[in-house]
């Protein structure tokens, strides 16, 4: 871990972050990432074939960020997510059946078919909702963190957002207020290099978004977002700091989305060099973890193959469940506009 004097940015994680690695942790992180990968690939295809309505912002490529952060959070800890939110929900423990059902617009979905892809919620697991407004979840997360502090219940809140969202006013307002009040919040910027189709170099002067932390008087940490163990290590530090009452941390995870802004094929706008995409895929988060697992002897290729197979079976079951679930009744269209 090095800190640069000029910007105060910490390049994490601390040395030796892989020490003491256990088989349980390797398999846990692997399972979280594989579940995301297969859910995204299968739902992406279902939309392309017209089997599923709407459109999807797929999380493939960024799995290590959700898996790493979520592995240090409990069900009572809260998160807010983004339009690219399936990965956060799954890593937080959301189940395939109600997720697929929601994407299919069925009553058995997480939102009873009212929300769809961009509004997955699971209150029982502290998933305070995905959000279709870029940066919209950031102020909500500081409210969740405020509730933790107000009640003194020892929980924390984490908010996920992209490089693009770090330019909106609500980001500045929220991180400043969280800093001033020492709120137990972890700001997780998933820098995938693009705000929709606009490259980072065209939307900010900075290379490291974590530099922004200095202007709020809090730590800013850059981490390799393709290394789930590295993400986990810096998230652990941030959670510890939050729980100690010292306040928030800004984590910038450098990552990449393999698919387009939206959908698998997207709009085919040539805004990324195919070589760039391939280079990131070479450092695929799941491959990296599998290599760590086998090289350390903590897990075997058979272990990983079993997780892929189990997950694929869960996917098939979830899709089947969703397809066979009842449609919502238009007569109920006004239900839940208000709490009565």
């Amino acid at each position, binding site marked *: 871990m090095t800190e640069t004097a000029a910007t105060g940015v910490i390049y994490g994680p601390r040395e030796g972050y892989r020490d003491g690695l256990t088989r349980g942790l390797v398999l846990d992180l692997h399972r979280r990432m594989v579940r995301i990968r297969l859910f995204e690939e299968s739902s992406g295809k279902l939309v392309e074939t017209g089997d599923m309505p709407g459109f999807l912002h797929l999380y493939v490529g960024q799995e290590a960020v959700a898996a790493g952060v979520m592995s240090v959070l409990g069900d009572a800890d809260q998160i807010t997510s983004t339009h690219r939110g399936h990965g956060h929900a799954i890593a937080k423990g959301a189940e395939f059946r109600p997720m697929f059902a929601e994407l299919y617009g069925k009553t058995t979905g997480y*939102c009873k078919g009212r929300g769809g892809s961009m509004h997955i*919620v699971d209150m029982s697991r502290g998933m305070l909702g995905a959000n279709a407004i870029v940066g919209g979840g950031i*102020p909500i997360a500081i409210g969740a963190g405020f509730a933790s502090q*107000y009640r003194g219940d020892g929980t924390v809140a984490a908010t996920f957002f992209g490089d693009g969202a770090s330019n909106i006013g609500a980001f500045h307002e929220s991180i400043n207020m969280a800093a001033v009040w020492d709120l137990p919040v972890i700001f997780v910027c998933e820098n995938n290099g693009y705000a929709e189709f606009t490259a980072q170099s065209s939307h900010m002067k900075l290379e490291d978004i974590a530099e922004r932390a200095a202007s709020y008087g809090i730590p800013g940490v850059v981490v390799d977002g393709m290394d789930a163990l590295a993400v986990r290590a810096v998230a652990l530090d941030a959670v510890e700091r939050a729980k100690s009452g010292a306040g928030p941390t800004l984590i910038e995870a450098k990552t990449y989305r393999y698919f387009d802004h939206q959908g698998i094929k997207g709009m085919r706008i040539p805004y990324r060099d195919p070589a760039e995409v391939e280079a990131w895929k070479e450092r695929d988060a799941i491959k990296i973890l599998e290599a760590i697992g086998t090289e350390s002897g903590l897990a075997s290729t058979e272990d990983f193959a079993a997780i892929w197979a189990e997950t694929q079976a869960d996917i098939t079951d979830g899709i089947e469940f969703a397809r066979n679930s009842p449609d919502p009744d238009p007569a109920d269209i006004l239900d839940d506009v208000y709490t009565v």
Partner: protein
Amino acid sequence: MTTRELTYVKAFNEGMHQMMASDPDVFLIGEDVAGYGGVFHMFDGLLTEFGDRRVKDTPIAEQAIIGLGVGAAARGLRPVCDLMFMDFIGVAMDQIFNQAAKMKYMFGGAVSVPLTITTAGGGGMSAAAQHSQSLEAWLAHIPGLKVAMPASPYDAKGLIVGAIRDDNPTIVVLNKKMLGVKGLVPEELYGIPMGVANVVREGTDVTIVAIARMVVEATKAAKELEAEGISVEVIDPRTVQPLDTDTIVTSVKKTHRALIVHEAVEFGGIGAEISSQIQESAFDYLDAPVARLAAPFSPVPYAPILENAYMPDAARIAAKVRALVERS
């Protein structure tokens, strides 16, 4: 019930004190609400009584103020978030209309957002275009929100209590020019539920539906008209969302004439909705077209002579009523 005379702002303040005393989940945040007690003294004494854990000054950051309230409310607390001037609501609008208002519905009922937003609206103080607006129609248009506009000290207390007790995001818009208006207010804690209109004055010839301070002006006009032999019923909807259409329609079926008065601009104002509801439900009872009296379609001007011309008042309300009666 012991009642005594209190100003509008003191009555509101008493409601805040009593709700914070009765429910430990209620907290207050906003710009200068703690140490200063709010720029209109709405929150005087709360910091002293409840401490800085529950009464907090914020940075000037309206999106974060409301967003924090949304997140805390989703976790079961009952935040009161102050926006000082209603004109500032635009800064926080995403958190109000995309987040607070929609969470319940788009999450399939999984979350309730018992958030109260307090703010002060209305003109008449030469506060100009960005400190004088009445934006209630904008908010009433959003499914999921409730909007309360107290027009008396009794309602200022009852509606803030009712709003905090309500499990939905509710905006309570105090009227700046009414802060010092006195009226009888019970000492006890009481809440007025959202969506229950107040028949301020009974009458038989014309129904005036008046919003916020226009209730006071309409009541003045009604007294003046009584001397001329015109009997006016004044209805204060108290909340524009939900809107107590039943009380309004019942009144119009009795009087056969309706005038709607508000400070907000006429075009697309809440008066248009009320007018439409009346003609849909009581068309056959009407002796004249439903009339509206509201501000012209311009920003609120600064110069007193312009602002006086801009806002409806008792004299103009009376003239409009006379025209309605003469027509039929």
